[in-house]
């Protein structure tokens, strides 16, 4: 749930399930859910005039009146779910979704607890690969995770991959399905079966530990551990990475210091791979270190009757050299706004794989019938007029770490950024 609550996600239509006849009480819950979803959109959709048929929109009241009888006469759960999906499908917006109860639980498995294994994972070509390993854990980047506590991962990943086949959040959901099983209570071990670099099956017992970084709390958001790393790469290149756009009181001064110590660097790399976002305002604050003009913005968020410009406030120290931003399918929300905005402004070159396409502030609410309804409360367009939601940000340089790269100790994405920065230096 941690990630699901923090990030803004887009979900494609999900397969229908369940064919049991509806009991009267279940039918009532489905009708209540229908009214709940209709009213939420009626009350909170960012352009109410579209719901009155203006700006190429539709008559939302007519949708209600047309579909309510269908919900009232749905023969089974599958049909009832179909009516809900039909209703939100009329909006032609992919980031509105009904999440069936069983899928919700598949992605939020059982373990509970904040403990982590120290393994960072990405699913590449359908295989869950270790991409980095915390010290003290006996595993290697490039190893494939086959089984976690007796449970084979392949069938789970197959199911999730099918469900999210057309969705930009596919990578995020695949990794979520793995980490939901790796994570658990601190101090409780998990048995993991790996396929090592020579394709031998190895078992490791890993004791879950507290996440790295410092715990930050902001209102109702679940407590989150925020960490960052700042270092110099060979070739006089600054490198900064962090896991969340949170804890600005600690993160922003660290970022400022990183830029300051890199005033004369050949280039700076900001790595937001795996970063699901956080406070949108921090994207503007960070971008300010790279933008000199005062009239620039990362994009515009359209809330109900209120456009909010993501204006960049130029700040010191200003870095004018080459800027590379690394992204992947787990970079979402504020990460996408940051990278997408600076790309549109021509200020950064983006390396990696398509981002999650989950830029919007969205909410997941449980419906009376047990399913969940996810809806966005705003629309976001980058400065170049592109909607990130459901499309993701396409990097300038598409590059991904394959298993053989990881086993050989390479990070092809970072290396591509370094090559580009060095080429810029030679060019100058």
């Amino acid at each position: 749930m941690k990630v699901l609550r923090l990030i803004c996600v887009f979900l494609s239509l999900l397969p229908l399930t369940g064919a049991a006849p509806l009991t009267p009480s279940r039918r009532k819950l489905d009708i209540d859910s229908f009214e709940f979803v209709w009213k939420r959109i009626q009350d909170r959709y960012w352009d109410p005039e579209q719901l009155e048929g203006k700006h190429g929109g539709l008559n939302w009241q007519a949708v209600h009146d047309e579909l309510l009888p269908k919900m009232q006469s749905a023969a089974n759960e599958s049909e009832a779910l179909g009516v809900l999906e039909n209703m939100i499908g009329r909006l032609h917006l992919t980031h509105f979704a009904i999440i069936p109860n069983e899928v919700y639980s598949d992605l939020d498995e059982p373990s509970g607890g904040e403990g982590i294994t120290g393994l960072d994972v990405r699913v590449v070509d359908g295989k869950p690969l270790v991409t980095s390993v915390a010290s003290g854990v006996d595993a290697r980047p490039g190893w494939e995770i086959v089984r976690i506590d007796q449970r084979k991962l392949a069938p789970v990943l197959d199911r999730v991959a099918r469900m999210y086949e057309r969705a930009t959040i596919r990578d995020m959901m695949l990794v979520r399905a793995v980490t939901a099983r790796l994570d658990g209570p601190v101090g409780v071990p998990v048995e993991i079966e790996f396929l090592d670099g020579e394709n031998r099956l190895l078992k490791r017992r890993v004791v879950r530990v507290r996440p790295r970084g410092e715990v930050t709390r902001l209102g109702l958001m679940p407590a989150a551990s925020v960490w960052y790393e700042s270092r110099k790469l060979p070739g006089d290149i600054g490198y900064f990475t962090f896991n969340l756009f949170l804890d600005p009181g600690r993160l922003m001064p660290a970022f400022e210091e990183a830029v300051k110590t890199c005033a004369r660097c050949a280039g700076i790399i900001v790595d937001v791979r795996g970063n699901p976002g956080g406070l949108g305002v921090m994207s503007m604050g960070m971008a300010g270190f790279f933008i000199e003009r005062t009239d620039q913005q990362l994009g515009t968020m359209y809330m109900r009757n209120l456009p909010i410009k993501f204006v960049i406030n130029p700040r010191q120290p200003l870095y004018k050299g080459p800027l590379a931003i690394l992204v992947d399918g787990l970079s979402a929300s504020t990460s996408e706004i940051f990278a997408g905005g600076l790309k549109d402004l021509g200020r950064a070159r983006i390396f990696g794989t398509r981002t999650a396409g989950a830029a919007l502030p969205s909410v997941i609410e449980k419906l009376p019938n047990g399913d969940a309804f996810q809806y966005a409360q705003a629309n976001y367009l980058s400065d170049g007029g592109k909607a990130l939601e459901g499309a993701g940000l396409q990097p300038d340089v598409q590059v991904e770490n394959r298993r053989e790269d990881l086993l050989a100790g390479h990070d092809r994405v970072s290396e591509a950024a370094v090559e580009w920065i060095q080429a810029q230096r030679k060019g100058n």
Partner: protein
Amino acid sequence: MRLLTSFLTLAALLNAADSLPKADTVLEKYVEVTGGKEAYDKVHSSISSGTMEIPAQNIKGTVTVYNSEPALEYTVIDISGLGKMEEGTDGNVAWALSAMQGARIKEGDERAAALKSANFKNRAHWQEFYKSAETVGVETVDGKACYKIVLTPKEGKPETEYYDKTSGLLVKQTATLKTPMGEIPVETSVSDYRKEGGLMVPHKMQQSAMGQQFQISIDSVMMNAEIPQDRYNLPPEIKALQAKAK
């Protein structure tokens, strides 16, 4: 029948217009019931402190406002998880500073609004800050019949204020805040007036902006407090921006 309805409506409007007091009468009554012009003129500085909250998100913090005549202000808001956000004016330069956004000098309408807000005379001598004020009707706010006054500042967009017909106290204000992120409509309800150093001061403010509700509760107000002048000095980050602009 339609003609009769129109006539009655017109008559009602004319009657309403006749019975509405002039805006300056309403504004002067407010000054009077909150202490009187003389009491306002005796106040030269204040320190207000309290809490700020976004209840729907369970976000809480502290707020302290230092204010000295003629128009000096320094506000610091500290919210756990977000850090410190500062704003101020030295009577000429209006600025904002936070870890999230860095340093910024306010310009145009935003600067004018900050200077107006910081000025000690903005209530007792409102004519110095507004081009006009007009009573446009009576509306009910929180069950109280209120005069609705539209004030047009010398710089910036009109503001609407609602004054309780009975008590004369200000109960609500709506305005459009001009910020770099865009023009943001803000509605502020004020209540819980208490006497502080000869003036009635609201201790609760509920603001609504960008779909969020903010609550400010003032715990303490010190009128004519000793405030060192350097409290209002521009922070080094703001001075650096000024130097860069030259």
